[in-house]
């Protein structure tokens, strides 16, 4: 054995346009060794991965997809900050080989920064199929950087990329040199003059190459100018000089300097492509256009889309249901077995009702999430997702959202948790947060047992209509709230809304499975810890302080912290027509909506033998909610099925102190307030604690307000 060479760590960033296939190159390089997080302070996904190649440990960082390195959008700012401040050793610029004129814009901007770039000509197979030819050697010579052909989604080009990385790192790549990109006679004199002045300042300002800084100052790039102003007070003279030169360029050419720079880059690329590219006049969008004749057809487009959505919904929730109940069955067996091993008493309660139930609550969503993301991966990888956004954009615009929000909103009818996770497919932060805030208004299937119980008890003949009315109320509220928020909270954040409609492609199995695997892992890792703590805490609240010998579960609940808080909030919910017991059930409902029914059973039927069906204290059910999605047409969860009927009688008889009007207000309240602890924690994980508290606050306020209007308004017009 030879002594191992010292391992060098290389940081490699992936940059490219949104549709360049960056993700597939990232997967190609890193395989399963990936971490997903957020960029500091923002909710743009940051993916990193590591791999070994020869003597190198290569850390790959996936930058957000951007069209340029200006600083107009959040994604552009992140990508630019990373390249300028963190100075990765190498930037792999992924470009769509069949669309070079556009994708090389970013390449040129990267070259201006002066980082080491490798150009990955992705989707090379499609490029070759069009009959085009490209002189890669000549291109390398003209750009002064390695150019590698790859087919990310078919796993081709990995070796070549890694070899190029190693060669660059050892500075032995034959054609690697810094080629200054000439931007044309109108700009070059001014650029040279300013660059010379920058070089004269001494220490390079902002650690940027003089020519790049000169470019940005002449372009009139506000963030960089501000940075220079603040961090280098001694170099402020440069700003004045730059402004003078900008004036001069304007006078001489009659054009905005920013536009001249764009033209200059375009000109350089056009010249480059004339030298290296021979392209028959082919149109690779032609097959996609034929498919779109049907899929985005004026009349057929929407029905077909709704058909796909129906399939996706059923794939997720109907096909997921048996898997879910199987999983639950195993969990039950498992907790039974564990209970047998434990000494009993509060330790057993803690482990079984708190820990295992908490873990179970996370696990039962897994089949849904896997299936949903399989479906979404299919839609995304084929290119249909962009069409879906195209088709539904107008409708979603009413909510202040855009087309891509449709799928998360639809999934909200099944369960809010996967729906909020699905907002990761949205491009910008504003839309993601707004969608996540509105998703819970799509009544999830976990709330259905409550509606069925109440509608059945109070509105026998019209039960179906009443439930439908509740669903409509949710949609109406989403529209109103969406319009309100997009005009107030999110008013200032808007860029041009554009969607590229990429050519249709066949999805690949590795792509789909990787996609699914990452989502599942993300979900388990991020949720696991938090939900466990939350469920243990909630369990504790409902059993502490312990009663010596509780006469009934009801007594224990009343005695617990939960019961006391429930009593304390009695006056707050009185104007809604709810007795204090309802307060307790609503509090319990923060954990999950199924718990509303089971805790109500405990509270109202403690004295009756029928309560045997729900003998445990609230938290048992609280911590182990029935799966949120067991199919929409299924009645109350099995555990409460026996009591459900009796509970209905109790409610109907008026012993619960609830009028039909108050019952309707209660249903509206359940519809609108915070759906469940999983949803809350998902929002926290995705968008931070501030948005979580905002979400809780506004939803409770909205629920209270709407219930108040229904109850008091109804009484005013003589309904109650």
């Amino acid at each position, binding site marked *: 054995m030879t002594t191992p060479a010292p391992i060098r760590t290389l940081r490699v960033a992936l940059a490219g346009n949104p549709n360049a296939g960056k993700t597939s190159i990232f997967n190609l390089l890193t395989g399963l060794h990936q971490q997903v997080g957020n960029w500091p302070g923002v909710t743009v996904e940051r993916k990193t991965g590591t791999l070994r190649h020869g003597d190198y440990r290569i850390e790959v960082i996936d930058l957000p997809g951007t069209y340029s390195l200006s600083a107009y959008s959040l994604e552009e700012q992140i990508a630019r900050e990373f390249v300028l401040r963190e100075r990765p050793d190498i930037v792999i610029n992924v470009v769509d080989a069949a669309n070079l004129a556009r994708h090389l814009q970013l390449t040129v901007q990267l070259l201006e920064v002066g980082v080491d770039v490798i150009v990955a000509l992705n989707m090379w197979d499609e490029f070759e199929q069009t009959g085009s030819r490209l002189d890669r050697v000549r291109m390398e010579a003209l750009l002064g950087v390695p150019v590698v052909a790859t087919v990310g989604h078919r796993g081709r080009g990995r070796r070549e990329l890694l070899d190029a990385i190693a060669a660059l790192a050892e500075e032995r790549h034959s054609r690697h040199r810094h080629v200054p990109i000439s931007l044309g006679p109108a700009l070059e004199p001014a650029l040279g003059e300013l660059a010379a002045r920058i070089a004269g300042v001494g220490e390079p300002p902002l650690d940027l190459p003089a020519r790049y800084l000169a470019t940005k100052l002449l372009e009139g790039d506000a963030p960089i100018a501000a940075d220079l102003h603040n961090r280098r007070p001694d170099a402020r003279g440069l700003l004045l000089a730059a402004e003078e030169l900008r004036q001069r360029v304007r006078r001489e050419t009659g054009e905005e300097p920013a536009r001249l720079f764009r033209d200059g880059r375009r000109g350089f690329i056009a010249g480059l492509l004339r030298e290296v590219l021979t392209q028959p006049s082919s149109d690779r969008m*032609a097959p*996609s256009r034929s498919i779109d004749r*049907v899929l*985005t057809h004026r009349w057929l487009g929407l029905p077909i889309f709704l058909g796909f959505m129906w399939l996706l919904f059923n794939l997720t929730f109907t096909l997921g249901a048996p898997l879910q109940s199987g999983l639950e069955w195993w969990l039950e067996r498992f907790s039974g077995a564990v209970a047998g091993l434990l000494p009993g008493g509060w330790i057993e309660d803690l482990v079984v009702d708190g820990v295992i139930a908490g873990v179970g609550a996370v696990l039962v969503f897994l089949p849904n999430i896997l299936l949903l993301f399989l479906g979404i991966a299919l839609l995304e990888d084929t290119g249909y997702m962009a069409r879906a956004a195209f088709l539904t*954009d107008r409708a979603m615009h009413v909510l202040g959202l855009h087309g891509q929000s449709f799928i998360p909103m639809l999934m909200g009818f099944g369960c809010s948790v996967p729906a909020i996770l699905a907002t990761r497919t949205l491009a910008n932060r504003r839309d993601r947060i707004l969608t996540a805030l509105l998703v819970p208004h799509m009544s999830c299937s976990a709330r259905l047992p409550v509606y069925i119980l109440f509608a059945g008890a109070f509105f026998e003949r019209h039960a179906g209509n009443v439930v439908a009315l509740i669903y409509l109320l949710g949609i109406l509220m989403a529209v109103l709230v969406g319009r309100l928020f997009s005009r107030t909270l999110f008013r200032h954040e*808007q860029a041009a809304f554009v969607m590229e409609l990429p050519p249709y492609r066949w999805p690949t199995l590795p792509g789909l499975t990787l996609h699914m695997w990452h989502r599942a892992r993300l979900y388990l890792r991020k949720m696991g810890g938090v939900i466990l703590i939350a469920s243990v805490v909630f369990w504790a609240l409902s059993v502490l302080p312990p009663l010596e010998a509780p006469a009934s579960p009801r007594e224990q609940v009343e005695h617990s912290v939960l019961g006391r808080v429930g009593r304390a909030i009695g006056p707050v919910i009185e104007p809604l027509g709810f007795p204090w017991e309802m307060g307790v059930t609503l509090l319990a409902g923060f954990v999950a909506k199924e718990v509303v029914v089971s805790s109500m059973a405990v509270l109202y039927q403690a004295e009756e033998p029928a309560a045997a069906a729900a003998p445990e204290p609230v938290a048992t059910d609280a911590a182990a909610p029935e799966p949120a999605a067991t199919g929409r047409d299924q009645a109350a969860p099995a555990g409460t099925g026996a009591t459900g009927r009796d509970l209905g009688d109790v409610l109907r008889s008026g012993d619960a102190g609830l009028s039909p009007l108050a019952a309707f207000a209660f249903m509206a309240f359940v519809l609108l307030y915070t759906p469940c602890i999983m949803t809350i924690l998902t929002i926290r994980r995705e968008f931070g604690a501030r948005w979580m508290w905002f979400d809780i606050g506004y939803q409770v306020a909205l629920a209270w307000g709407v219930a108040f209007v229904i109850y008091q308004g109804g009484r005013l017009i003589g309904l109650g």
Partner: protein
Amino acid sequence: MRHRGRHCRHGRPGLHEPAGIAGPCTLADLAPGEGGLILSVGGPPAVQARLRDLGFLEGQRARMIKAAPLSDPIEYCVEGVHIGLRRHEAEWIRVDHLDFCPYAGQRAAHHASLAAFLRELPGRFRARRRDRGWGVGRGGGRGAGRAAGRPERDPRARPGTDR
């Protein structure tokens, strides 16, 4: 068929006069199949920058493909890439109206194009199976499937301007 190549993309026979200029208008005013030469790109700086990044640049040709069913986002083709823009944003782009198509936007045109597509679906499927992959069927045998009736590239829609 006899009039091979002599159709506009709506499946109507006969070529329209080239550059039947209907005067300057915005991109949002184009009917399906019509093209325009971009004269100016307006709007707030962020919108302008994004539109230009996407290829909506002065001097480029853009073609309107179709509007979404609810008529709002509109699909355009610029530099061989298809992009959906909202009407609101398309209005920032002023164009010289070229490729005026008298049949454009007519309902019958949609039916004609759909019928043409369905007619040749079987042949198209065979071509795809043969070549494995969407993008093909063109390079190989220009077989039975892709005869007339689908002149989606108006031969004049790409004169010298796009390189």
